[in-house]
C-alpha cells in the first residue's frame, strides 16, 4: 500500500505530506516557545525592583553564536539548492559546514553554561557580598577561593553591570573561610545555576530547550547527510524532500535564537 503524495506534491495544495507536517509541527513549536517567552515577560514585569540582573551575559559570545547560526542557515539553503541542481558533492560540503556550525554553537554555549556554574555569590556575616568565579584549582574544602570577584554591599548593586570601582584585583580578594559565611546552607553561597534567580531560571530553560532543538536538528541533518545518503541514489526526490524538511526545522531553530539573543543578552 502506498500513501498518496508522500513524495510528489498534491496538485491543489501544492505540498507533499511531510512539508505540510513540518509546518504544522513548527506552528506548535511557535506556541511552545511563545509560552516561554510570555513567561519571561511576565516574570520580568513582575520582578521586584533590583532583582532583575542586567547585562549578565557575555554579549560578544552571544553575537558570535548568532553569526554562527545564521551562517549555518545559509549553508542549509545552499546545500538544498545544490541538490536541486544535481550537485551532490557540493551539498555534502555545504551541509558539512552546517554540522560544523552546530558543533561550534554548542561548544560556545556549553562554555557559557560552565561559566555560570563556576560563578558564585557569597555573603559574609557582616553583609558584604563577594561575587565572582571560583578558583577551580583550590583543593582546601575549608576555604572558598575566588579567582576574580567584585565586592558589593547589597544585592541590588549586583544586578547592575559590573563597574570598575567594585572590581577587585586578584591579590585583593580575600580567601573566604567557609565558617565566615552568614549561614551554613541556602542562599548565601550559591552558584549561578537556575535556582539562583528567576532570570537565570528562565535563561537556562529557554537556552536549554533551544540547545536540545539544535542537538535534535543536527542529529537528523547528520543522519540524512551521512548514514542515509544512499537514498540519493535510489530515490533522489524523496532525498531532496528530507533535506528540505530538515532544513525548515533548522531555520526555525535559528529563528528562535534570533529572538533569544536580544531578549537574554541585550535587553
Amino acid at each position, binding site marked *: *500500500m502506498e500513501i498518496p503524495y508522500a513524495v510528489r506534491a498534491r496538485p491543489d495544495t501544492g505540498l507533499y505530506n511531510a512539508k505540510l*507536517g513540518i509546518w*504544522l509541527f513548527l506552528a*506548535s*513549536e511557535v506556541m*511552545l516557545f511563545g*509560552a*516561554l517567552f510570555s513567561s519571561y515577560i511576565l516574570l520580568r514585569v*513582575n520582578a521586584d525592583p533590583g532583582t532583575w540582573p542586567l547585562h549578565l551575559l557575555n554579549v560578544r559570545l552571544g553575537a558570535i553564536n548568532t553569526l554562527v547560526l545564521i551562517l549555518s542557515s545559509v549553508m542549509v539553503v545552499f546545500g538544498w539548492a545544490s541538490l536541486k541542481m544535481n550537485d551532490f558533492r557540493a551539498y555534502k560540503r555545504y551541509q558539512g559546514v552546517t554540522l560544523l556550525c552546530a558543533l561550534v554553537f554548542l561548544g560556545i554555549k556549553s562554555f557559557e553554561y560552565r561559566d555560570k556554574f563556576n560563578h558564585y555569590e557569597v555573603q559574609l556575616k557582616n553583609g558584604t557580598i563577594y561575587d565572582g568565579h571560583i578558583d577551580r584549582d583550590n583543593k582546601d574544602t575549608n576555604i572558598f577561593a575566588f579567582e576574580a570577584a567584585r565586592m558589593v554591599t547589597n544585592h541590588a548593586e549586583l544586578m547592575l553591570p559590573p563597574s570598575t570601582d567594585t572590581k577587585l584585583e586578584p591579590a585583593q580578594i580575600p580567601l573566604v573561610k567557609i565558617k565566615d559565611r552568614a549561614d551554613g546552607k541556602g*542562599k548565601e553561597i550559591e552558584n549561578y545555576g537556575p535556582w539562583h534567580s528567576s532570570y537565570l531560571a528562565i535563561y537556562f530553560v529557554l537556552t536549554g530547550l533551544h540547545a536540545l532543538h539544535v542537538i535534535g536538528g543536527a542529529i537528523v541533518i547528520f543522519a540524512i547527510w551521512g548514514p542515509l545518503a544512499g537514498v540519493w541514489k535510489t530515490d533522489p526526490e524523496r532525498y531532496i524532500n528530507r533535506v528540505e524538511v530538515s532544513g525548515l526545522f533548522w531555520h526555525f531553530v535559528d529563528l528562535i535564537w534570533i529572538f533569544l539573543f536580544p531578549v537574554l543578552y541585550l535587553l
Partner: protein
Amino acid sequence: MQDTSHAPEAHHETLGFWRKYIFSTDHKVIGMQYGITALLFMLFGFCLMLLMRWQLGHSGQAVPVIGHLLLKLHGPDMISADKSGAVGVISADLYNSYGAMHGTIMVFLAIVPLAFGAFGNFVTPLQIGAPDMAFPRLNMASYQFYVVGGLIMLASFFIPGGAAKSGWTSYSPLATVSDLHRPNGQTFWIIGMVCLINSSLLGAVNFISTIVQLRAKGMSWMRLPFFVWAQFVTAFLLLLAFPPLEAAGVLQLADNLLGTSFFLPTGLMVSGTALHVSGGGSPLLWQHLFWFLAHPEVYVLILPAMGIVTEIIANNTRKPIWGYRSMVYSVLVIGFLSFIVWAHHMYLTGMGTKIATFFQTTTMMISIPSVIILTSLFISLWGASIRFTVPMLFALGFLPMFGIGGLTGLPLGFNVSDIYLHDTYYVIAHFHYIVAPGTIFALFAGIYYWYPKMTGRFMNEFWGKVHFGLSFMFMNAIFLPMFMQGMAGMSRRMYDGGLTYAAVPAAAGSPGIPGLSPFVLFLNKPILWAAVCLGLAQIPFIINFFWSIRHGRKAASDNPWEATTLEWQTPTPPPHGNFAKPMEVFRGPYEYSVPGQARDFTPQNEPDPAQLLTHGNPLRS
C-alpha cells in the same frame, strides 16, 4: 452492495502477531488499540470516583469489601482503620490523589484518546476515502507515547507519597509544596503529561495532514462529513493549545527538581517556615499557561462527540443534516474563540475587572456557535421518521444532556454569578453534564454505530437499550443533585463531603451556625448509590462488547445502516489499505431521501447518471 471478493490492489504481506496487533501502522488497528486502552482507563477512572464517592457519603468509615486490598496497595500511611476496627479509611492525602488522578485520567487518558485517538483514527481516513493516515509510523509512535504516559501515571500510585494530589489543574505553589518527596507524584504527573502531550501533538499533525492531503478525488471541503470537520478543528486545538502546557510542565518540573521559582512567589511560607527559594515567581503564570490549554481542551472533549452524533442523526433520521454549512462555520468559530476564553476560569484570582469583562464577553460569544450546532441537530429531527436504533438512542440522549451542561455553564461564564458558584459542586455538575452524559454517550453511540464496520456484526440491540436506559437514568441521578449542593454552597474540594460546614441548629443558649443543611449533606448518599448502579449498568455493555465479536447478529452487507458516507463503501472489516478500488466522490455527505432516487440514501461515491451522460467523466467541484 459492493463486490468484496477481491482484495485491495496488490500485495498481501502476511504480518506476524506483533506487527499486526501490537506495533501496527494500520490506522484501524491503532484506532482500536486506542479505543480499548482508553475504555480500560475510563473504567479505572470510574473506580477511583466510586472510592471518592464512598468517602464523601460515608466519611470516616472503612471502604467495604476492598479495604484490605487498598491497605496493601497504598500502605498504612494512606489507609487506616475506622472506629469499629474495619480497615479501609481513605486518608485526606489519598482522597486528593484520587481526585487529581480521576480528573487527569478521565480527560487525558480516557475521553480524548477515545474521541480523537480511537474514533478519529478509525473513521477519519475511511470517511475521506484515504488508504491510511499520512504518516502511519508517526501514528504508531503517537499511540506508544500515550501508553507510556498512561503507565507513568499509573506507576505514580506506588511511589513514596503516592500520586499527584493537587487536582488535575496542578496549581502552583500547591503542586510544588504539597509533597516533599523528590521525585514525587507530581514529578511523575508532569513527565506523564509530557508524554501525553507529545502523543497528541503527533496525532494532531497527522490528522491535519491526512485531511488536507489525502482526501479522495472529488472530496471537496464542503463535501466532508461533519465528523471530519470536527476532528479537523479538534486537531488544530490540540496542535496549538497543548504546547503551552508542555512549557508550563517544564517550568513546574524545574520548580520541583531544580529549586527554581517560576511559580513560587517571594516570601512563600509553608507550615510556618519560609521556603528556601529565590522567589520572584508568579502563581498566576501557571494558571494562565494551564488554562490556555485547558479551555480549548474542553472543546477537544466535545467537538468529536458532536461529530459522531451528527453522523448518527443524519443516518437515523434519513434526512440531510439541517444547516450543514452553518454547522461547519460554527465549528470553525468555536475553534478560534476557544483560544480567547481561558481566563473565565480565573475570575477569583484578582486579575482585574477589565480583563474579566473581556473574557466574560468572549465566553458569551462562544456559546453562540455551540447553540447553532445543537439547534441544527434538533431541527434535523423535525419531521423525520426516526429509526430508534441503539446508537440513535445514545445520540438523542446526548442532545438534552449537552444542552443542560451548556446552559448551566452560562452562570459560570458571568463574572458576578461565578464569584458565588466558583469551586462548588455546581461546577462539577455543569462540566460532568457535558462530558459524562454528553460526550461519553456520544462515544457509546459511536461504538454501537461503527461496531458492524469493525467486526462485521451488530452489538445486541436489547442489551444495548438496557445499557442506554439505565445509564441515562443513573447519570442524571448522580449529577442533578450536585446542582442543588453547589447552589447551597458546598465546596468541591472537601474531603468529608461538607460535614465541616454542616449547619448547627439553634438551641437553648446558642443561636446556631448557618451552614449546609442536613438534606444537602444527605444527597451524598443517593449520589453514591446512583454511581454504584451506573457502574453495574455498564456490565451489559462490557459483556455485549466482547460477546458480539463472535456471536452478534451478522451485518448483511458492507453498509448495514444504509449510510451515505464513504466508510461504509469498504469491505468489512476494512483490510490494510481500506478500499477495494480508488474512491471518487460526486456528492455531499448527507444525501438521504433525495426525491427521484430509487433508494432513500445515495452514497457519496455514486455518480449522477445525468452527469455521466453529459460530461462523460464528472469533474470534481
